[in-house]
């Protein structure tokens, strides 16, 4: 089983709360790489606000910013996202299989209890 650091997951999920940040990630997922001004264009919010969102995403390790001349390029960094997804899918598997068997067990116990009553 894979090991995770809580604080990393924490930062990842916290960064994903905001719809603007999710929109930025969704766009980067499509385009691989975009400049900061390209990313800011579709939003009504001003460039400094977009910069703040990018800083949060960067801190969470979800994006990487690199300077190319006067332009700052932004790339997606899939690692932390994958960790968060791994946590979810691991427990989804654990509980969905377990609960299926729990249901089978409880249903047969219920059937036994009814038979005994008669």
């Amino acid at each position, binding site marked *: *089983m894979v090991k995770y650091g809580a604080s990393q997951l924490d*930062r990842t*999920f916290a960064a994903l709360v905001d719809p603007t940040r999710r929109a930025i990630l969704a766009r980067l997922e499509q385009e691989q790489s975009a400049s900061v001004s390209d990313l800011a264009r579709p939003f009504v919010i001003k460039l400094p606000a977009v910069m703040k969102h990018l800083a949060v995403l960067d801190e969470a390790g979800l994006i990487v910013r690199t300077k190319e001349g006067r332009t700052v390029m932004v790339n997606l960094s899939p690692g932390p996202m994958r960790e968060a997804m791994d946590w979810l899918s691991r427990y989804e598997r654990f509980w969905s299989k377990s609960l299926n068997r729990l249901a089978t067990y*409880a249903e047969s116990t219920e059937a036994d209890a009814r038979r005994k009553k008669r």
Partner: protein
Amino acid sequence: MTSLTLVRRIKARPSIVFEALTTPEGISSWWGPDSGPVLSAETDVRVGGQFRVRFRMLDGSDHESTGEYLEVVAPERLVMSWRWTTGGELDEAGNLSRIAIDLKPIDIGTELTLTHELLKSDASRITHEQGWAGAIDKLARRFSYGAADRHEQT
């Protein structure tokens, strides 16, 4: 927020489901992500009481789930903390998570709702309020492994 919710409708009355969830005999019959055996199950079903379940998966690996009962309202609600140990070592950086199980009587028997969440700081509460559940579904689809791999190659 890092949290998972599953709902099951079970053709058995809540008291039977509650027993299956809390007795060593019940737990031994269902606990685990595959059909590997439960090696031992101990439960002390009262607030502050502990549970410890060891199981072996089909790949031969041994795992242990331990925790403490935080709320016990038979046969309606069960809340417990959760820690995971693999091969004797604390997994997930010793992370504590929390499981809440609610049992609601319905016409066919019981509707079980299970929520497993990673316990964290204020951030998780904020995300909870803002309805994280829908977003994670979309993101899970977007950030498929395929997409991530493609990105790494570029």
